[in-house]
């Protein structure tokens, strides 16, 4: 059959689609229907439809029918939220001691079997040892065809390539960078990759698009009941917000820790009442690769210039005013932005009501100086950030639920005055790409990027070109953020304001900021870099990019060679 030839190994696909049936749990969310749809759609696996953004996207992904992107705010899912089977306390020890002797014992206890969805989380970043441990153990157990559902993957997780090759893992739905990105883009993965934002991951869990069978949570501190936090222990990373949805909605939850404390582990961000088993291991990760001792600011003159221009833009347009709010990450340029902004805030005598992290020592200093009222932190990037979260009640942990979830009754991201973000490409219609290189190779995950576009003012801080590769292009290779949500593009060669934002264009009249039409910038790049050839691509989808509401925004195509 057409589709089966395309994706190869029909028996695997069958197993993948059928896997939910014996268990019964998925049937509650309509797996029976999905199964039939899936089989029918194998005939049309290559059916591509054009979505509201004009992008060609697969009508069906990994056996599930998809809703093509319907425009920003154009999709309103209905029905009831998904959930795990009803549990009973009768099945758990009354003394609260859920320890298992090893990860294998725990995985056997929760019934890990072929075709299940297994989730892990990226709060330990490139220092994480747990995700690799899970799939190495699954391989030892002889389990096959798992779907790995990480909140993000890092280069350390290239270990999973051998499990993809051997059949332990069927496919990945989560960010894929480096070797995993190359593997997927080369079309070697059996299923299709699905890239979601942090908020989109919560959305997919909550509306049943993805049902997690086993969540394995790496916990820097935990007690035998399963309460866990990330404030102490050798792998202390600040918070566990990325694992929160999994702890609530997964069928089975395993907590893995290298810092077991007696009950009660205080405070608990992960509640033991959701946890099936607790495993103690010598180490959950390499602390040196989890948070940095100190965060260093970029020394690149171009990046510093971009950051400074962005901060001045906020000051001169009045986006920076007393009581405003901002989101800035720990990436080189956005961190420098926060530092320039701090100077401008001091000079103007204004303070922010709150800031959303990625926190670093610089944001912590601003909190202590009274320049920020509270830090609502999604992840902590250095030891000062972890210490502040532990000690300062104004520095609080958040999760994709509070910050980003499409199915929430509101979320923080849309209440932020200004979010500054990076991008791999932005086009003359202000559409942004954050997942692929300009050759179409997977390069980054979406992270919270799409979700942050909900801010009142979204600014992309990007170099105009990187080693001859233009960042401002006619059309992004992969659409991740619709241009109507991207307000300002700041490059070292000037600032482009989205024509939709007449208010911002008015606000900079008379300013000596280098405001430029984005087409002029693009034309200048064509002169500096030369007009590029059209890179080769195929019509074989290897992954899709979801929008925050679960619809399919764009496709990542297989690359030859």
């Amino acid at each position, binding site marked *: 059959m057409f589709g089966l030839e395309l994706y190869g190994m029909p028996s695997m696909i069958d197993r993948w689609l059928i896997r939910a049936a014996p268990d019964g749990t998925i049937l509650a969310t309509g797996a029976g229907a999905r199964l039939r749809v899936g089989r029918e759609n194998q005939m049309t696996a290559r059916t591509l439809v054009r979505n509201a953004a004009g992008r060609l996207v697969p009508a069906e992904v990994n056996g599930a029918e998809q809703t093509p992107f319907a425009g920003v705010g154009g999709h309103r899912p209905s029905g009831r939220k998904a959930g795990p089977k009803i549990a009973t306390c009768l099945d758990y020890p009354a003394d609260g001691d859920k320890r298992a002797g090893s990860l294998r014992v725990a995985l056997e206890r929760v019934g890990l079997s072929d075709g299940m969805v297994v989730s892990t989380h990226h709060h330990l970043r490139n220092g994480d040892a747990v995700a690799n441990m899970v799939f190495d153990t699954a391989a030892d157990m002889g389990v096959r065809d798992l779907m790995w559902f990480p909140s993000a993957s890092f280069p350390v997780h290239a270990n999973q390539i051998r499990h993809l090759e051997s059949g332990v893992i069927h496919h990945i739905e989560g960010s894929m960078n480096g070797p995993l990105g190359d593997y997927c883009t080369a079309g070697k993965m059996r299923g299709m990759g699905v890239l979601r934002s942090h908020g989109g991951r919560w959305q997919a869990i909550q509306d049943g698009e993805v049902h997690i069978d086993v969540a394995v949570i790496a916990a820097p501190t935990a007690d035998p009941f399963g309460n866990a936090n990330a404030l102490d222990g050798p792998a202390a990373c600040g918070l566990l917000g990325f694992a929160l949805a999994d702890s609530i909605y997964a069928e089975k939850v395993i907590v893995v820790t290298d810092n077991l404390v007696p009950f009660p582990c205080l405070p608990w961000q992960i509640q033991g009442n959701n946890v099936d088993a607790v495993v103690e291991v010598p180490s959950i990760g390499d602390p040196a690769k989890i948070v940095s001792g100190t965060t260093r600011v970029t020394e690149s*003159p171009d990046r510093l210039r971009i950051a400074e221009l962005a901060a001045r833009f906020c000051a001169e347009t009045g986006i920076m005013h007393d009581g405003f709010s901002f989101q800035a990450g720990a990436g080189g340029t956005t961190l420098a932005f926060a530092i320039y902004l701090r100077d401008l805030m001091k000079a103007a005598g204004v303070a922010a009501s709150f800031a959303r992290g990625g926190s670093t020592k610089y944001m912590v200093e601003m909190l202590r100086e009274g320049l920020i009222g509270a830090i609502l932190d999604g992840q902590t990037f250095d030891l000062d950030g972890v210490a502040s979260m532990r000690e300062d009640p104004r520095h609080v942990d958040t999760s994709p639920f509070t910050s980003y979830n499409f199915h929430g009754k509101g979320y923080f991201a849309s209440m932020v005055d200004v979010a500054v973000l990076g991008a791999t490409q932005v086009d003359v219609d202000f559409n942004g790409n954050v997942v692929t290189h300009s050759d179409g190779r997977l390069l980054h995950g979406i992270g919270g990027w799409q979700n942050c576009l909900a801010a009142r003012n979204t600014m992309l801080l990007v170099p105009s070109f990187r080693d*001859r590769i233009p960042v401002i292009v006619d059309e992004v290779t992969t659409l991740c953020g619709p241009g109507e949500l991207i307000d300002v593009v700041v490059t070292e060669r000037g600032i482009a304001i989205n024509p939709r934002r007449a208010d911002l264009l008015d606000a900079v009249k008379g300013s000596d900021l280098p405001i430029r039409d984005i087409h002029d910038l693009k034309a200048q790049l064509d*002169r500096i870099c030369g007009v590029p*050839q059209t890179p080769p691509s195929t019509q074989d989808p290897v992954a899709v990019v979801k929008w925050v509401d679960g619809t399919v925004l764009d496709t990542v195509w297989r690359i030859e060679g």
Partner: protein
Amino acid sequence: MSTNIVPAHAGPSGEKIRSDLVVRYEPGEAALAVRMTSKVAYLYGEAIEAAARRVAAAFGVTTGTLVVEDFGALEWVILARVETCLRRAGFGAEPVLPAPAPGGATPRVRERLRRSRLYVPGNQPKLMLSAGLYGADGIILDLEDSVPPAEKDAARILVRNALAAMDFGSSERMVRINQGELGAADLEAIAPHNVHTILLPKVERPEQVERTAAKLRELAGHDTPFLMPILESPLGIRNAYEIAAADPSVVALTLGLEDLSAELGAPRTPEAWESFLARQTTVYAARAAGVQPIASVFSDVRDSAGLEAYVRRERGLGFDGVGCIHPRQIPVVHRAMAPSEAELTRARRIVEAAREARERGLGAVAVGSKMVDPPVVAQAERTVRLAVAAGMLEE
């Protein structure tokens, strides 16, 4: 000529090469082959090979192999690297020049602010790409100390192409050439490419300036670039005035403290008393000759407080500008070179009074009950210009 053709290569070595290109030529009997690899081949592969072939054709290279390893070099860099390689291999011809930048034809201006001048190593294209964006009063493409002896030819070709292809914005386009014969070759290569000002290293006698100026008139006609001699030895300091006054093309006089302190046998200290006389002498000589006195660089890039104090001190001695080795020093320098509020208030009063006097046809200028002499008026006007440049004052 073809009997002397040898294998050759050009371009940087080492890990993590960016925005540059490594090229090798191997002589051979078969028709010319170009073997190209590039991380941007999917976007610019055809353009890279075409550029390499264009240079080869101009140099009459019809056989052998060009092995081109590209790391995202812009076209003017590719042309320079391939040319360097072929010249090293023994070929010679008129160069293939890159297309000129639309904004590259800025005029040279004798009287202009020279508060900051940013040194950019002449053999590192990556650092040139954005050099014009930081608002430095001048960009110095350096062929001298920042280029190792074995790369002098490569840097000369690269700087020539940069002058031809790059728009350095409102910055003065400057080049520091080498001493002696290398310097003469540098002059020949760069003189036709709208270089505004040439820095002459280690000038000790006025004849050096005269010779250079004569050579430039020979190369570029009457519209010759300006000169900025660098005093780097006790003898140069001793002859400071004669050097500054040696030729009308001199616009500024500066000094290099590293070499000077080595020759003096007086190690550099933060207080810099060992160079006090040299710095004062430079200011006196420059002012006496009617050119701008410009101070040396401050080399601790991270110490912006130290830089600011340094600039204020040098400005206090009478210097009009300092050298910068990192773009982040530029705003600090401009801030520190700006006049104080009190200076500005006084200068504005004087300038205003001078204007009134002119309008009323009066010869003498008075501020309150005090008469003001013409040099004071000139200095006040300079202060107002500095204030405008520093954004303290509307035009």
